[in-house]
């Protein structure tokens, strides 16, 4: 008996996956647990291991093809079994469901004829509805019935040609509005979408360039793909809504419009900026763009800022240097401080969901890690209960895995709070975008010597850091956030308390 291999759910949030590479070929013997494909989810590319054993009868998904969860991507079975090339016709229940009322123009005449000439009354019902489908006299009526049916089930309607073109042009059909019967996406819609995408990219690039995003002159304007990537990182957060909008608008992957039929080629985006090139977003980038825009659009956020004296942390690190390995970074100290403070402030560790506060039992702190062209947030689980050195070890491991592209979706999931640090790049302070459904994100600037006022009122130079806490105001209010931030500051200014805790 053949077994169908379906597109697996590899992450909680994935709705579709892309078969990046097949590791087996038709005819290969596969054992349960053997890697058979690399599948790109919305978060990462993962190796998928077979749940069953057998011989690969056929691979139904092409490499690069994106399919929804549950779609059959391959079949395993006995060597003797024949592949089933033709899938059973699906969805075309039009024949069965065409109401008799949707009869052809000539319905009266034909019905009469049928009654007259087809004495088998039981047959005449089906005959009439079948005739309505193939009956030439009734294309409009048939279409109307079909349309109603198609609209009701929410499936994406696209002609085979439209699907092929979309694949070739890198257009996400879900973003295209269909103009055909029943909202079917046809060739013209895909071509229009490709043109519009090319045009809007130009517009956004111009918007980004002219805005005070980077302060750079036009010639140094970021390319559209830079804008998209940046929007996913905190760096771009300062850019404001225009930038996020750019990220969203460019999220459908683009390809040079030259791939469209020559007649449909939009003008090349040349001009003052010279020729532009386009880069497609990979799935991670698409996810970042979408989620960040969603956050900005739905989360009423506000930020609290506090300068924290880091001399004690510096001293602690100096004293631990050479004694424990790995030496905790400032960021590890912040992670630990946050985790402990979250214990006392459960709403900062919670979620605003469907009109309720959702408070989480575990405290899992995500740490934002940059990877070329992407930003990932691996999770330090139960950070409040892990010793500092364990956190240090854990963060190093996670960062390494992110950089190597080995991080797996479970390691990226489950965070209840996020810490983002750009101090290593010399950034003094910044805000970030809340990572929904989390209630808060804490940003960490550079630990640097800064003028400070000593206890006796004299000026001095001390190492400090600016922490910025961005909060979802639906669940955490100003005073709550301030108290949480104060607790974090207190822990960082007296870090020995952290070593004693948890």
């Amino acid at each position: 008996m053949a077994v169908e291999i379906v597109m697996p759910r590899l992450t909680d949030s994935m709705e579709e996956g892309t078969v990046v590479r097949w590791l087996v070929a038709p005819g290969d013997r596969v054992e349960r647990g053997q890697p058979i494909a690399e599948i790109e989810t919305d978060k990462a590319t993962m190796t998928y291991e077979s749940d069953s054993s057998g011989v690969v009868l056929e691979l139904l998904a092409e490499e690069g093809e994106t399919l929804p969860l549950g779609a059959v991507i391959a079949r395993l079975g006995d060597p003797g079994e024949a592949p089933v090339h033709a899938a059973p016709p699906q969805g075309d229940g039009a024949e069965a469901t065409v109401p008799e009322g949707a009869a052809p123009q000539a319905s009266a005449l034909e019905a009469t004829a049928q009654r007259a000439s087809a004495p088998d009354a039981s047959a005449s019902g089906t005959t009439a509805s079948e005739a309505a489908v193939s009956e030439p006299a009734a294309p409009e009526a048939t279409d109307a019935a079909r349309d109603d049916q198609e609209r009701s089930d929410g499936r994406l309607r696209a002609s085979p040609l439209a699907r092929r073109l979309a694949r070739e042009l890198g257009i996400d059909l879900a973003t295209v509005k269909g103009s055909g019967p029943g909202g079917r996406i046809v060739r013209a819609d895909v071509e229009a979408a490709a043109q519009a995408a090319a045009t809007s990219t130009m517009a956004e690039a111009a918007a980004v360039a002219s805005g005070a995003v980077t302060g750079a002159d036009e010639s140094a304007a970021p390319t559209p793909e830079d804008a998209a990537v940046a929007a996913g990182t905190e760096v771009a957060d300062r850019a404001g809504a225009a930038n996020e909008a750019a990220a969203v608008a460019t999220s459908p992957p683009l390809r040079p419009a030259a791939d469209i039929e020559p007649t449909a080629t939009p003008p090349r985006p040349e001009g003052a900026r010279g020729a532009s090139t386009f880069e497609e977003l990979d799935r991670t980038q698409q996810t970042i763009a979408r989620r960040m825009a969603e956050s900005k659009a739905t989360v009423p956020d506000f930020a609290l800022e506090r300068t924290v004296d880091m001399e004690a942390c510096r001293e602690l690190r100096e004293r631990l240097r050479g004694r424990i390995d790995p030496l905790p970074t400032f960021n590890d100290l912040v992670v630990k401080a946050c985790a402990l403070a979250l214990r006392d402030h459960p709403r900062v560790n919670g979620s605003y969901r469907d009109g309720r506060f959702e408070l989480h039992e575990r405290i899992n702190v995500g740490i934002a890690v940059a990877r070329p062209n992407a930003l990932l947030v691996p999770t330090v689980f139960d950070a409040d209960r892990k010793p500092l050195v364990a956190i240090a070890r854990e963060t190093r491991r996670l960062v390494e895995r992110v950089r190597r592209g080995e991080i797996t979706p479970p390691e990226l999931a489950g965070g209840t709070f996020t810490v983002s640090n750009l101090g290593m790049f010399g950034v003094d302070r910044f805000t970030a975008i809340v990572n929904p459904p989390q209630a808060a994100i804490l940003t960490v600037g550079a630990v640097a010597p800064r003028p400070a006022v000593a206890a006796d009122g004299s000026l001095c130079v001390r190492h400090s850091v600016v922490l910025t806490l961005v909060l979802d105001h639906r669940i955490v209010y100003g005073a709550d956030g301030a108290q949480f931030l104060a607790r974090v500051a207190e822990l960082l200014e007296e870090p020995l308390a952290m070593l004693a805790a948890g």
Partner: protein
Amino acid sequence: MSSETSATTPHRPPADEQATRAPAATRTITYREALREALREEMLADERVFLMGEDIGVFGGAFKVTDGLLAEFGEERVRDTPISENTIVGMGVGAAMAGMRPVVEIMQLSFALLALDQIFNSAAHVRYMFGGQPTVPMVIRMPQGAGHQLGPTHSHCLESFFLHVPGLLVAVPATPADAKGLLKSAIRDENPVVFIEHKSLYGMRGEVPADLGPLRFGEAAVRRRGSDVTIVGVSRMAVVAERAAERLARDHGVSAEVIDPRTLRPLDLDTILESVRRTNRLVIVEEGWPHGGVGANLAALVQEQAFDWLDAPIERIARADVPMPYSRPLEQAALPHEENVVAAVLATLGRGAG
């Protein structure tokens, strides 16, 4: 049925005929005359060719296609038969196996059902069953189609019956020129050919080159060039499709390509596929019933081979799925017309019928 009015071409010796051909390159003649010319020319060219059927001699054929041939070629070569369809075809199969080239006529395609045993089990399969030793170079001519108030049993369009059977070639000419050219090649072919003529076409006039030779089977005719949609019309529906295409261009600005396959087996699928890959849309028009029909088969072939080029479902137009009514209004309502083709084309383009 209107009586045959055009004079039969008087018998001329071959040499004489050759002499008159050169100047008169093209004449306008009827489908009926074109068929008669083909029969006559092939009988003159090959003495093994003979005709057999009900009322084809003295009466000149129910549709007057063979009018005058008895006088010209005599009873040996133009043989009237009793009402005995299965025997007529069976005789033809035997004669063909014995080296003759019979052209048998079944008065109505509907009556061919009586001869299906000989057509399917003998004509189509003898060559295969005997390892290729005998061939069956015969032609079975039969008029099909509704529109003449002849009720359910005289109005069938059953191309699909014969298309279904391996071993038979099937021709469905829609113009006088095709009728002549294809009948000539049918007579010369070593295989049994089911030659289906449409009753409503017999009086249709068209240009036919005087020296038109045999036309190859398996070559579709592109009757009209277009870029928005491909319409394939079978038999008389090729004519209807062409008229619909003219109206589409005039009233709706739609550029329709019209293809007449001319022979269903062999089928020139390449020409149809090439067209569909350009227009991305296909409307198939036939006069047969919708289920298991020529259009159903063609739709399957096209989606198998041009799926990724389709921008809309393939539309099929066929007669109503009912026995053909006798009443004129009902019969007309059950038949495909130009406006049905127009509506289907607009539907496939996603445009309302307005």
